[in-house]
C-alpha cells in the first residue's frame, strides 16, 4: 500500500470541535496501521486485552464451528476446493486476456472503466468521480429549478462550488479494497464524508477504531461495547441512538438502521468493492448479509466500484463454484442472503452512472512471484482468521494492515514489499500449524507461503546487508554443524557434558528462568536439562557391532561405527 505522505488524520476532532485545521466530517480513527510496531510487539496489546480476548475466543469458535458443520454437509467439498483453486489460477494466469475482456464488456454495458496503479491513483480517481457526480447533481438540480421557474438563490455560480464541496458525501458497501487503499481518509482529506453502512464497519467507524477482521471488522467488540459506542457517537454524525438503547442485538440493529436510513436516502453516490467481476459479461458481484449493500447499489444515482484486478473470473459459470464456496467458508451459511449482480447501468433501475476502478496496488508484483501468487486466489472469506490460534489470541490490529490473520501475513508483505520491519515480521507471525490451509476454500497453501515469504525476508536482509545478525550467524554455524555428523557428534558430546554438569549442579532436570538469549523461552516455560548421554552415544555403546550388516557407513571406518 502506498503510504499517504500527507498529514495523519486529526485525532478526536468532531464536527464543531475544529481543533486541528479543517473540521472532520467523519469520526477520526484513533490510530492508523501506519506507524504500528512489528507484530511481536504489537501483539502484546491484544494479548493483554482481556475483554477482546474473550470476545474473539467466543466469536471465532462460534463461526469456525458453524463453518465446519455446513462444510461437512457438502459431499464434494474437496472437489469444490480444487475447482475453486483452478478457476482462480486460470484467471490469474491469463489476466492479460481477461482484464481487457472485462474492460470491453463493462464498456459495452455502459460502465466507465478506470485503471489505478496504486492507492494514491485510485483515491484520486475516486475523489474526482465523486466531485464530478456531485457537480452533475447540482447542475441537474439547478436546471430543474430553472425549468420550474424557481428563482430562489441568486448568484448561484459563485457560491455553488464551496457549498457543494461542504456537502459531499458517499455511502459505502463493505469493501476490503477501499480499506486497503485507506479511501475513507483520502476522501475525508478531500472534504468528502464516506459513511460505512455495513453494521460492523459502522461500529468500527463510529468507535474511532480500525477493522480487525475481514468479514466481521468489529469482531473484537461485544454488544455492550457496541451499545456504548452508538449512544456516545451516533448523534455527532446523524440521527442519534434512541434513548434507553439496550444491548439486545435487535435494538442495536434497529438503531443502526434508523441512523443509516437518512444517509441512504440522501446520498447520490455509493462506493462498493466487488467479490467477483465476470470478464465475459462485465457483471460485478457483491456478496453481503445485511441488505445495506443492496441499498447502496440501487438507490444512489452514481455507483463507483473499486475492484482488485485479481477479482476477475472468466465466465458466469465460474460463479457457480465460488458462490458455493464463499458463504459456507465465511459466514458458515449454506446460501448468501444478499447477492447483488449488475452489468452496467439499467435505464430506470438503479444507478445511471456506473464506474469501475480496477486496482493493481502491488498485485502485479505478487503475480510475478510464481510461488507467492497463489495468495491472489483469496476470496476474502476469512476462514483462515477464524481457525488461526494466533489470530484468536492477538486479534487483527497487530497485523498492521486491512488484511489480518494468516492471509494478511502472506498477502500484506507481498503487496507492500519488505522494506519496513512491520512487513518483514508478518511471515513469522505464525506457528505454521497448518489449520489455515485445511479451511481455505481455494486451497492457498498458506503455511508454504509463510515459509516462502520468510525466505524472501532473509534474502532481503542479506541483500540489504542487514546480516550478519545473531540469527544469521547462528543459522550459518548450525548449518555447518549439521552438514557433517562428526561435527554434530562433537556438539552432542559437549551438550551431554553440560547436561551432566547442569544436572549435578541444579539437582533437577528442569531449568528455570535464564537471561538472554534463553529469556524468551524460559521467562514463561521451564527448559529440560540436556540428558547425560545422547541417543547416538547410547546406540554406539549398545548396538554397534562392526560385524553387523548395514554399518558400512560411507566415510566412516567400521571399527569406529562412523563416530568421531
Amino acid at each position: 500500500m502506498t503510504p499517504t505522505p500527507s498529514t495523519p488524520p486529526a485525532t478526536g476532532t468532531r464536527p464543531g470541535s475544529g481543533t486541528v485545521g479543517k473540521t472532520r466530517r467523519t469520526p477520526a480513527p484513533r490510530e492508523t496501521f501506519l506507524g504500528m510496531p512489528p507484530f511481536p510487539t504489537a501483539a502484546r496489546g491484544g494479548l493483554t486485552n482481556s475483554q477482546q480476548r474473550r470476545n474473539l475466543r467466543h466469536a471465532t469458535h462460534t463461526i469456525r464451528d458453524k463453518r465446519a458443520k455446513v462444510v461437512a454437509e457438502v459431499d464434494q467439498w474437496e472437489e469444490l476446493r480444487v475447482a475453486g483453486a483452478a478457476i482462480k489460477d486460470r484467471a490469474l494466469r491469463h489476466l492479460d486476456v481477461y482484464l481487457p475482456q472485462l474492460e470491453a464488456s463493462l464498456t459495452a454495458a455502459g460502465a466507465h472503466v478506470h485503471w489505478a496503479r496504486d492507492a494514491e491513483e485510485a483515491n484520486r480517481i475516486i475523489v474526482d468521480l465523486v466531485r464530478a457526480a456531485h457537480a452533475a447533481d447540482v447542475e441537474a438540480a439547478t436546471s430543474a429549478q430553472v425549468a420550474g421557474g424557481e428563482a430562489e438563490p441568486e448568484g448561484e455560480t459563485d457560491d455553488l462550488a464551496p457549498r457543494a464541496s461542504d456537502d459531499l458525501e458517499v455511502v459505502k458497501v463493505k469493501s476490503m479494497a477501499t480499506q486497503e487503499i485507506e479511501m475513507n481518509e483520502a476522501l475525508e482529506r478531500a472534504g468528502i464524508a464516506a459513511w460505512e453502512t455495513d453494521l460492523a464497519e459502522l461500529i468500527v467507524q463510529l468507535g474511532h477504531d480500525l477493522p480487525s477482521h475481514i468479514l466481521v471488522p468489529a469482531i473484537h467488540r461485544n454488544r455492550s461495547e457496541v451499545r456504548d459506542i452508538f449512544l456516545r457517537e451516533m448523534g455527532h454524525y446523524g440521527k442519534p441512538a434512541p434513548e434507553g438503547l439496550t444491548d439486545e442485538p435487535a435494538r442495536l440493529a434497529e438503531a443502526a438502521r434508523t441512523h443509516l436510513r437518512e444517509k441512504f436516502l440522501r446520498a447520490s453516490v455509493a462506493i462498493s468493492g466487488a467479490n467477483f467481476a465476470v470478464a465475459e459479461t462485465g457483471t460485478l458481484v457483491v456478496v453481503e448479509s445485511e441488505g445495506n449493500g443492496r441499498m447502496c447499489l440501487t438507490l444512489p444515482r452514481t455507483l463507483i466500484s473499486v475492484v482488485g484486478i485479481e477479482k476477475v473470473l472468466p465466465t458466469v459459470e465460474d460463479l457457480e463454484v465460488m458462490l458455493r464456496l464463499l458463504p459456507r467458508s465465511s459466514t458458515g451459511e449454506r446460501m448468501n442472503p444478499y447477492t447483488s449482480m449488475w452489468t452496467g447501468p439499467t435505464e430506470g433501475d438503479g444507478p445511471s452512472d456506473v464506474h469501475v476502478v480496477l486496482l493493481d496496488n502491488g498485485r502485479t508484483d505478487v503475480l510475478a512471484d510464481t510461488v507467492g501468487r497463489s495468495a491472489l486466489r483469496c476470496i476474502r472469506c476469512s476462514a483462515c482468521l477464524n481457525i488461526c490460534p494466533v489470530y484468536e489470541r492477538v486479534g487483527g490490529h497487530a497485523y498492521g494492515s486491512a488484511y489480518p490473520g494468516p492471509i494478511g501475513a502472506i498477502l500484506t508483505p507481498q503487496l507492500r514489499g519488505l522494506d519496513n520491519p512491520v512487513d518483514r515480521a508478518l511471515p513469522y507471525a505464525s506457528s505454521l500449524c497448518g489449520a489455515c490451509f485445511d479451511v481455505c476454500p481455494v486451497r492457498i497453501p498458506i503455511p508454504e507461503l509463510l515459509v516462502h515469504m520468510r525466505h524472501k525476508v532473509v534474502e532481503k536482509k542479506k541483500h540489504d546487508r542487514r546480516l550478519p545478525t545473531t540469527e544469521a550467524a547462528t543459522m550459518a554455524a548450525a548449518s555447518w554443524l549439521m552438514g557433517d555428523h562428526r561435527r554434530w557428534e562433537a556438539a552432542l558430546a559437549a551438550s551431554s557434558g553440560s547436561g551432566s554438569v547442569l544436572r549435578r549442579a541444579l539437582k533437577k532436570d528442569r531449568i528455570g528462568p535464564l537471561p538472554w538469549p534463553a529469556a524468551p523461552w524460559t521467562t514463561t516455560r521451564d527448559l529440560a536439562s540436556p540428558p547425560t548421554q545422547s541417543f547416538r552415544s547410547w546406540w554406539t555403546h549398545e548396538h554397534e557391532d562392526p560385524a553387523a550388516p548395514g554399518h558400512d557407513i560411507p566415510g566412516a571406518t567400521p571399527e569406529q561405527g562412523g563416530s568421531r
Partner: protein
Amino acid sequence: MTETTKPTNTSGGAGRPGDGLRVALFATCVNDAMFPETPKAVVAVLERLGCTVEFPLTQTCCGQPFTNTGYFDEAMPALRRYVETFEPYDYVVSPSGSCVGSVRDQHPMLADRSGDTDLAARARAVSARTYDFPELLVDVLGVTDVGAYFPHRVTYHPTCHSLRVTRVGDRPYRLLEAVRGITVVDLPAREECCGFGGTFAIKNADTSTAMVADKARHIADTGAEFVVAGDNSCLMNIGGMLSRQRSGIETIHLAEILAHTQDSASAAGSAAGTGIDAEPPAGAGFDPAATDDTLDMVGGDR
C-alpha cells in the same frame, strides 16, 4: 501414502509382524540431543515386533529449523546428509511428525530450488520411504497392539504436523487404545496448536506463551497424569509450561508408552533414566505374555 491401512509387509508369515524388515531409524537431532529415551523406545518396540533396526550414524538433522526460519541455503547441507544417509533403505522411520513432514514436504521443494535435478529426484525417492512412527506400525507392519502396558490416565495431543502434514489420522489413538491398563481421555480443543512452532516460540514468545497456557489448561482439565504426543518439540513446549506451573502432569512421547510393558513397569523404579536393554525378546514380542524380561524400558521418566 498415509491413507493405506493394509499392511505392506507380508514377509513375516506366522512369525512377528516385523520379521525380515530392515528399518532405518531417523532419530532427529532434537531427540538425539535432548530426548534419547524416545528413539530408544522406537528401537525397543520395533525390535519387539521383529524388525531389524539400524541407526546410520551419519545422520544429523532434517533441516527444518533452517527452512522454517527462511534460511533455505543453510538447510541444504542437512538435506544432503539426510538423502545420502537414508538412500540405501526401503523403510525410514522417525518419531517426529514434524521432521517427517519436513522431509516429505520441504526436501523436494528445497532440492528443486537448488537446481540439482539429481538431488531432487533422490530426495523425492527417500522422502516417499520415510514414515512417521505410527504409520510404520499401522500401515507397514499392520499392528495396533504392540504388547504395551501403561496403567495410567493419559490424554493425547495430536501435534499440528502429525495432524495436518503427515496426516497420521486416528493411528495414534488406535495404538493407544490397544495399550493394556491405559485410560485415554479426550483433550478439549485438541487440534489447536500448542504454540511451539520452532523459532516462533522465541520470535513471538508472548503469543506462543498465550497458546501453550491454554493448551496446559485444557490438559489439566482432563485430569490426566500424562500428556502424550508424537513429537518431543511440542512436548518440550507443553512440558515447559506444565513444569513451570508445577502441575504435576508429565509429558511422554507415544513411542515411550508403546515401549512400556508389564515387565518394564516392574523394573521402572530402579532403572529410571538408564535407558533400555534393547535386545530383541526371544518370543513373539508384540504379545505381552510372550515378552520376556529383557526389556526394562522406562516410560515417562523425563
